[in-house]
C-alpha cells in the first residue's frame, strides 16, 4: 500500500518541491552540461551566467521541481519561462559584453534579465502586464538583483530615455517588429526575437543594424538543424 502511495505522489509531482539548495545546484550544473553545452552554446560568459542564476526561484512554486528540466514552464497570465537552452542561445546570440546596455521586452518571470545581469551592469526590462511586473520587482528585490531596471509599460515603444541599446531581446513571438525598437538599436547592435509556438520555440530571428541597413537572419537552434537540412537518416 505504501508503495502505491509513493508512486501516486511521484506521478502527481508532489515530492518535486522538496529539493535542497545543494540539489538545485547539482541540477543546474547538469542543465548547463547536458542541455546547453551539449548543444553547442560555447560562450564561457553565458555558460557561467547560466550556472549562477537560480532558475527555480523564477518559476511558480508548483513547478519548482521541474525548473531545470529541458522545457519551458507556465508562469501564469498565459506567459511562459523559456526553455533554459533558448535563454542561453538568445543570450549568446546577443553577444553582450560587460558594460553594454541591453533592453529586454517582456520581463515575464525575470529569468532572462537575471542571466543578462550576470554579464552586464545595464539591463533594462519592460513588462506590459502589471501583475507580472509587481511579482518580478519583488523577486529581484528578494534575490538582490539590483542591476536590472524594470518598468511596467508597453514595450512597443522601447525605452527611449536609455537608448540606444547594444542589444535588444524580445522574449515574446511577434507578428511585426516594432519600428521604435529598431530605431533604438545601436548601429552594429542586434535584436533577438523567438519565432514560433510559444511553448516550443523553434527558431530565432536576429535583426541586425549595420551601415544604415536593417537585415534579418533566421537562426535554427542546433537540435533542429538536421530537420532544416532535411538530412533524413
Amino acid at each position, binding site marked *: 500500500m505504501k508503495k502505491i502511495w509513493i508512486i501516486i505522489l511521484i*506521478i*502527481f*509531482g508532489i515530492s518535486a518541491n522538496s529539493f535542497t539548495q545543494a540539489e538545485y545546484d547539482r541540477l543546474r550544473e547538469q542543465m548547463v552540461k547536458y542541455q546547453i553545452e551539449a548543444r553547442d552554446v560555447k560562450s564561457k560568459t553565458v555558460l557561467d551566467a547560466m550556472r549562477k542564476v537560480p532558475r527555480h526561484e523564477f518559476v511558480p512554486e508548483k*513547478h519548482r521541481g*521541474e525548473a531545470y528540466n*529541458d*522545457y*519551458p*514552464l*507556465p508562469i*501564469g*497570465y*498565459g506567459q511562459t519561462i523559456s526553455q533554459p537552452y533558448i535563454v542561453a542561445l538568445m543570450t549568446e546570440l546577443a553577444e553582450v559584453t560587460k558594460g553594454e546596455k541591453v533592453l529586454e521586452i517582456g520581463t515575464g518571470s525575470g529569468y532572462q534579465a537575471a542571466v543578462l545581469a550576470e554579464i552586464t551592469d545595464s539591463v533594462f526590462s519592460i513588462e*506590459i*502586464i*502589471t501583475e507580472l511586473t509587481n511579482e518580478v520587482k519583488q523577486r529581484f528585490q528578494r534575490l538582490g538583483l539590483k542591476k536590472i531596471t524594470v518598468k511596467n509599460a*508597453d514595450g*512597443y515603444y522601447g525605452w527611449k530615455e536609455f537608448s540606444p541599446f547594444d542589444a535588444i531581446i524580445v522574449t515574446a*513571438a511577434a*507578428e*511585426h*517588429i*516594432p*519600428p521604435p525598437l*529598431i*530605431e533604438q538599436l545601436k548601429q552594429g547592435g542586434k535584436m533577438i526575437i523567438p*519565432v*514560433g*509556438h*510559444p*511553448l*516550443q520555440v*523553434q*527558431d530565432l*530571428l536576429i*535583426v541586425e543594424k549595420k551601415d544604415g*541597413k*536593417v*537585415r*534579418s*537572419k*533566421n537562426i*535554427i537552434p542546433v*537540435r*533542429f*538543424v*538536421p*530537420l*532544416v*537540412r*532535411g538530412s*533524413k*537518416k
Partner: protein
Amino acid sequence: MKSISLSAGFISAAIIAYQLALMRVLSFIQWYHFAFMIISIALLGFGTSGVILSIFRKKLLSRFSLSFSVFLLACSIFMILSPQLIRLIDFEPYLITIDFAQIWSLLYVCGLLFIPFVCGACAIGLAMMSFSEKIHQIYFANLFGSAIGGIMAIGMMFIFHPLKLIPAVSLISFLGATFSLNRSEVVIHDATKSHKNICYTLLGINLILIVLTFSIFPIDLKMSEYKSLSKTQMLPDAKIIKEKISPMGVVNVLESSALRYAPSLSLNFQGGIPSHLGVFIDGEWAGAIFEKGKTTAFTFLDYTTSTLPYRLKLKSDVLVIGAGTGMEIQIAIQQEASNITGIELNPQIIELIRKDFAGISGDLYSTNNVGTHKRINIFSGEARSFLTQTDKKFDVITIPLMEGYTASAAGMHSLFENYLFTTESFGLMFDHLTDEGILAITTWINHPPRHAMKLLTMLIEILRQKDIEQQDEHFAGVRSWGSATLLLKKSKFTEKDVVLLKQFCSEYSFDPIHYPNITDDEVNRFNKLEHDYFYDAAINIFKGKADSIYKHYLFNIEPATDNRPYYSHFLKLSNIPYFIELLGRDALPFMDWGYLVLLCTLIALVLLSVIFIILPLFALRRSDDGKGNKLRTLLYFSGLGIGFMFIEIVMIQKSILFLGHPMYSVSAIITGILLFSGLGSLYSKQLNAEKNFKIIAGLIFILGIFYSLLLNNLFHLMLHFPLWVKYIGALLIISPLAFFMGMPFPTGLAALSRTSSSLVPWAWGVNGFMSVISTVLATFIAIEMGFNMVFLFAILAYSIVLGVGLDFKRLE
C-alpha cells in the same frame, strides 16, 4: 408504448443537442480539436451502455420502469452537474506536454462528460431491449429525436452564448423526463411507491440544478489563458466592446491602446501603426478594424509583401477572397485599385464593419455606394460558389493572411478541410483572371518552411494543369522575414514586371523567391535563411523534379486537392519515428496538434473497443441464451456502423462546397440522414425489410455508387439557387439513400432479439463503438488517402453487411 418512444425521442434530441453544445463550448474555451473528443466520448457512452445493459440485463428488465426513469433523470442531472464539476480543477490541456498533471485533468473531464451520454444511451438501449417487437418505432424515435435535437442545437447557438447552451439543452432532457412521468402512467405503472419517490426526488434535484445554473451558479468555464483573446485582454485598458454569437463562433471586438497589428511588416518601416480594434472568433485572432480618421494615412500597409500585385498591375479590378475585417481591402484602396470586390464567408464579420463599426472603419463596407468607397462591393458567401456563378474576370485576385501567426505555427488547423486552398480552387481563380491578370496569395513563413512551400508547389501545379508553356515565366514571389506573397500571372511576367518587382524588394528589404531568369546571387540577401528553400524548390520543380521534392522533403508539401483538402496538414506518418528520435518531446510542434489529437483518439478508441467489445464477448459466451453467431453479429453491426458513418461523412464533405459553409453542410446532411433513416426504420416492417433485405442492401449499394459519381454534377446544376433552396435540395437528394440506410439496423436487431436476445445490447454497443471509430477513422483515411477511399470503404462495409445479413436465420 407511445410514451416510451416519446421519451426515447426527447432524450435522443437532448443527447445530440448536448453533444453539439459541448463541442461549441470546448471550441470556445479551448480549441476545436475537442470536437473529436466530444464525439468520441458521446459514442463511447453508447458503446458502454451496451455492456452495462448486457451485464445487468435481467435486473434492469425486471425493474424496467424505475431503471428507465432513473437513466433518463441521471442523464439530465449530469448534463448540468458534469460541466459544473469541471470548474473544480485546473483544466489547461494546452500545457499537457509540459505539465503531465493535465493528463489527469483531461481524464477527469472526459469521465465527467461521459456520464450523461452513458445514462442517456442506457435509457434508449433499455427501451429497445424491453420492447424488441416495437424496435422500429423506438429506433425511429431515436433517429427523429436526434435530427430535431441537431436542428434545435444549431438554432439555440444563434440565441445563447456557448456557456449558456448547456443549461438550455438540459431543459430538453428535463422536459422529456417530466413529460414521460406525468403524461402517462405507462412508464411507472408497475412502480412501487418508493420507486415513484426516487423518480420525483431526482426530478426535483434536476429542476433545482437547472434553476441554479440559470440564476446564481452559471457554468463559468474559463477560456484558456493561452488563447489570443485571453492574452490580449491582459493588455492595458483592454476591454471587450462588442460580442456576437452564432454557430460559426463567438465574435469579440476588443479595444486596447496597446493593440497593434501589422503582420510581417518590412524592417524598413519607421512610422506609426494606426490604432485599431481587434476582432476575435472563438478567442482566436481574426483581424483588425482600423480607425479611419484617427490617422492621416495607412502608409504602413505599403510595407507588406501583399502590395506586390498592385505594384505590377496599376488601377486594377481586384477580387479579395477572405476580405475579413478589411485590411486587404484597405491595401487595395491604398494602392489605388479601380474597382474592389470582396468575399467574406462569415456574415457576422461583414456586419461588424458594415453596421456596428461603420463609423470607425469609415464606411468601408458600406452598401450605400456613396462617399469615397463607391467602387467597393462586399459579398457574403463562399468564394468558389461566387466564382462559379460569375463570368467576370479580374486583374488581381488576392488571398490575404488568414490566421494569426501562432495558430499557423502550431498546426492548429491541420484537420481543417480547406476547400479554398486546393488545386481545383486555385484553378478556378486562375480561370477568372483577365489576360494579364495576377493571382496573389500571402502566407506566413514557418521554419522549417511548410505553408509557403505547399502554396508554392500548388501554384506551380496549376500552371502544369493548365498546360502552360514556359511555366517559370508565369510565376513570381517575394518574402519578408515572416511572410511570403506568391504570384501566378496568366500571361508571362514582362521585363518591366521584373524591374518593378526588383525595385519593390530593394525598397522594402524583401527577398525575391522567383521571377523569370532569376539568379542565385539575387536571392536570400535581406532576410537570410540557412539556404533559400523556396527559390530552390521553385527552380527544381520547373526542372521537372516535383515528385522528387514531394518525396524527399521532410514535410508533406504535395498540392492539396478537393479529394484531400488538408492544406495545413504537413506531417508524414513515416517521419514520426524520425522526429521523436531526433527531438524527443520537442518533436511535438512538427506533429501538427490537430493530427496528433486525432491519432491519439484513434489509438485510445481502438483500445477501448477491445475492452468494451471483445472482452464482453467472452463474458457473454457463458451467459444462458447467448448462443447466436457472435462473429456474424459483430460483422453485421460493425459493418453497419462503419458504412453508415462513412457515407454520412462523405456526403457532408461533398455538400460543403454546394452549401457554401461546413455548418450548413453538417446540419443539412445529418438532419437529412437521421430524419429519413428514421422513416426508413419506421417503414421497414411494412416493406418487409427482412424478406427483401437483398433488394434493400442492393439499393443502398447502387444509390451509393450513383451518388459518388453524379452528386457533384447534380449540385453543380443547382449552384446558382438561393441558399434555402439548395438546403432543401440537399435534404431531398440525400433522402432516398438515407431512407434505405435506416432499415438494416432495426431489421437485424429484431431478428437477433427473437433467438439471441442477450446479444441485442451487445449489438447496440458494437454499432455505437464502430460509429465512433468510423468518425475518427474517416478523417484519418481522408487525410492519408482522400475522400474517394473513404467512400470505397463505406461500400466495402455495406458489402459485408449484405453478405452477412442475406440469411437472417444464420445471423440468429
